[in-house]
């Protein structure tokens, strides 16, 4: 039977931007509550240079992460905060770091070329300690989870272009 080609990458993204809604959950730990960020997102550019906007359903941008070689910053209504790396920025916002560089490829239904990956059945792969499921990628839905405590899960639904 024809292998089910990962349909839909064009349908849900343009070469330089990925937009939709995302929810990130970090499990509770003995010292911290469970955390959740659910937002409309717009991811632009490349892992080397780009920006990620997080906004409310009403269209108000609450936070913007911006990165370029040697400069990583988070801008909110309180002002701009510099970070050494994107990992540090996401750890500040979410409590755990998120592989933003890899997201550019994960959200396009494929492993990130920047690190080794192994397939996990025909609709998922493992990379960077995460399991990324593409079972509903045809509908623009990607689910990624990191088992290492505190467990982190990311669910993203891309807007149809």
């Amino acid at each position, binding site marked *: 039977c024809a292998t089910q080609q990962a349909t839909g990458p064009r349908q849900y993204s343009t070469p330089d931007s990925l*937009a939709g*809604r*995302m*929810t990130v*959950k970090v499990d509770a730990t003995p010292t911290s509550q*469970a*955390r*959740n960020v*659910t937002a409309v997102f*717009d991811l632009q550019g490349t892992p080397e240079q780009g920006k990620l*906007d997080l*906004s*409310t*359903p*009403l*269209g*108000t*941008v*609450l936070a*913007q992460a911006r990165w370029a070689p040697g400069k990583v910053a988070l*801008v909110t*209504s*309180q002002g701009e905060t510099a970070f050494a790396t994107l990992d540090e920025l996401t750890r500040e916002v979410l409590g755990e770091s998120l592989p933003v560089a890899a997201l550019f490829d994960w959200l396009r239904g494929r492993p990130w070329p920047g690190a080794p990956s192994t397939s996990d059945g025909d609709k998922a792969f493992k990379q960077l300690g995460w399991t990324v499921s593409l079972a509903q990628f045809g509908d623009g*839905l990607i689910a990624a989870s990191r088992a290492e405590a505190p467990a982190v899960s990311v*669910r993203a*639904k891309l*807007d*149809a272009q």
Partner: protein
Amino acid sequence: DAVDTLKDFVATVKTGHASFTQVVTSPDGKKKKSSSGTFDFARPNQFRFEYAKPFEQLIVSDGQKVWIYDADLNQVSSRKFSQALGATPAALLAGGSLEKDFTLSALPSQQGVDWAQALPKAKEGTFQSVRIGFKGKDLSALEIVDNFGQKSLLTFTQLAANATMPPEHFKFTVPKGADLIEQ
């Protein structure tokens, strides 16, 4: 002028039901995202944005808490009303303490819509401007520009004022199987 109309609206329209379309324009003006649904409110600070197109999403405030439910993500998040950043514009429409919370000024009318500007007094800093438009006495539009320059324009139609609204209408029950995290 529009400020008087707004004050009169807050004083006389205690509950409301309207259809709305929402267009969000990116700061560079290149990208526009449209959605639509229904907006209900009951003063003070109870409201319900029910997005139907292009996807199902629900924002409900009972005056104390604001819940956001995204059907595709099967995720519910809830925050205290006071900390629900971005709830301010809805508080302008559904709030009970207009002049305590906002500095009001009338703006020139455009295409038959009288505009009032409402600047939040609470230094929340999330918004550049929040403007509300009326056609005669009827609520017509809400325009929100945030600090990044992103603009949301909500246009309201078929506003039914002062219909009786059961309190459960602004209560949120977590759909079966949906995940809830309270912040």
